[in-house]
């Protein structure tokens, strides 16, 4: 239909100019060694250098995977638990669920600064002291604790999304099935394991895939809370690219690294299509 093209042209034109063209440009950049104003064609050297670098695998990729795995698992478990609790008709539960969702609507930068204040300016330690735990230096000296701080912020902000999606899913589970099993005398666990979980499979997958994609891209909170430190102990993927590109002006390596990130995320998006198609 020629008419379709006219309707699509403006949007596709912009997308090609602003995404496809930059990606091609970025691919070209990734084939060059660029430092300040010097630039020289080096072919796939940037990729080879990255993919054979112990730092890239042992630090950047490793840290990102740990971060993503911990955050997504925690968000899914907490979110599911809360959704099960909220899935009932009690007065005020709607308002409660709505308030729970607030964190994800806020700018990540503000959320990150707020938490930095809570971590660094002692109120969290103040609470810990009250229950007899000595002061903890959350950010800046201990690699594990710094990473944990990032995870806490990410989980705090995005559990609401998991909660909300899962709650929508749970509300869609037909009540008559649940009542029928109840009459048959199924235990709560058996109901959950054999009725609710299978029905929720697709929703759970959507949550896991969406959150994995977004957690892989995390940047703002790293920038604000740890700037990749102490040392390089929280140098997660996007921040590492930023550091190489905008702090070290090593655009070639940064572009190559960002391409690797795109490839990882493309795999996830292919899985996402699959899930969408089951609809």
């Amino acid at each position, binding site marked *: 239909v020629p008419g379709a093209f006219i309707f699509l042209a403006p949007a596709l034109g912009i997308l090609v100019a*602003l995404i496809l063209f930059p990606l091609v440009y970025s691919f070209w950049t990734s084939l060059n060694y660029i430092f300040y104003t010097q630039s020289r064609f080096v072919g796939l050297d940037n990729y080879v250098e990255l993919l054979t670098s112990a730092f890239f695998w042992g630090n950047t990729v490793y840290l990102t995977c740990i971060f993503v795995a911990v955050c997504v698992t925690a968000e899914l478990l907490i979110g599911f638990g809360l959704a099960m609790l909220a899935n009932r008709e009690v007065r005020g539960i709607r308002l409660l669920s709505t308030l729970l969702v607030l964190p994800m609507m806020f700018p990540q*930068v503000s959320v990150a600064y707020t938490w930095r204040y*809570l971590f660094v300016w002692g109120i969290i330690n103040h609470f810990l002291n009250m229950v007899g735990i000595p002061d903890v230096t959350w950010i800046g000296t201990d690699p594990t604790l710094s990473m944990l701080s990032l995870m806490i912020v990410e989980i705090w902000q995005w559990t609401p999304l998991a909660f909300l*999606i899962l709650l929508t899913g749970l509300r869609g589970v037909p009540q008559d099935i649940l009542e029928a099993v109840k009459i048959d005398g199924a235990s709560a666990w058996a109901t959950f394991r054999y009725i609710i979980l299978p029905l929720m499979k697709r929703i759970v997958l959507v949550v896991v895939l969406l959150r994995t994609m977004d957690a892989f*891209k995390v940047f703002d909170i790293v920038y604000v809370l740890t700037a990749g430190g102490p040392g390089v102990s929280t140098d997660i993927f996007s921040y590492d690219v930023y550091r190489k590109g905008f702090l070290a002006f090593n655009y070639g390596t*940064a572009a190559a690294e960002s391409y690797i990130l795109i490839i990882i*995320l*493309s795999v996830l*998006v292919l899985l996402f299509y699959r899930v969408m198609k089951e609809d």
Partner: protein
Amino acid sequence: VAILVIYLLIVLFPFFWGVLTSLKTNAEIFANRFGIIFAPTLQNFYSAFGPDYNYGRAAENSLIIASGTTVCAIAMASPAAYALARFNFRSRKNIMNWVISLRMMPPIAIVIPIFLMFSSLNLVNTYAGVILAYLTFSLPFAVWLLQGFMVDLPRELEEAAYLDGCSRYSAFRKIILPVSVPGIVVTALFVFLFCWNEFLFAVVLTRGMMNTIPVVVGKAITPYRIEWGAVFVMTILSVLPIFVVFYVLQRHIVRGMTMGAVK
């Protein structure tokens, strides 16, 4: 329910603490860290609008950029969404898959080439530059979400219009657009929200007086200056419009955040 309430308290505590801190003087933030009782002050509020941060200007920048992006995104996305929802053509599926795959595009991968391109086109530090950059994530989002809304419209609407002799274009303009207004509003608010909160493109593409709110908030915490009160005043002010958006969007959040994978 008790567990939910406890969780809610954990969720709300940072807000509460931020509001409290925003009303303390800087001296008090240092000296009386955990105090709940103190003389509230508007000092931080004035300093946020002062020359150090220029919050007023930043809010203006954010508003212009976010609304500009929203208008552009909706204007281009609604015809595209209509075509993808209603017309049958060979590459339809491919285009739709491509559009949704842009959802995963890491901004960090786009920001480097965009920065290099915009530098040579003199688009760095201009409203137009930031708006164009924001279209990279808001346009695919808008196309996809609107497409979902338009698929749900009854086909009889246009069929009646065609019988009355409307062309595709006038059917779109006179029939589809008006009945899509609720979907368009929801989409527009989402786009506005994403742009309002965006940080990476803003920090790379804007300087000084062109900074948007999220970038300006960061200026209060640097190696040379630590003013938590100002951070929280600016955060609170920037979050107020979000409450309005959130109120309208409540029922649509799941749909928006999952690109329609869960309705």
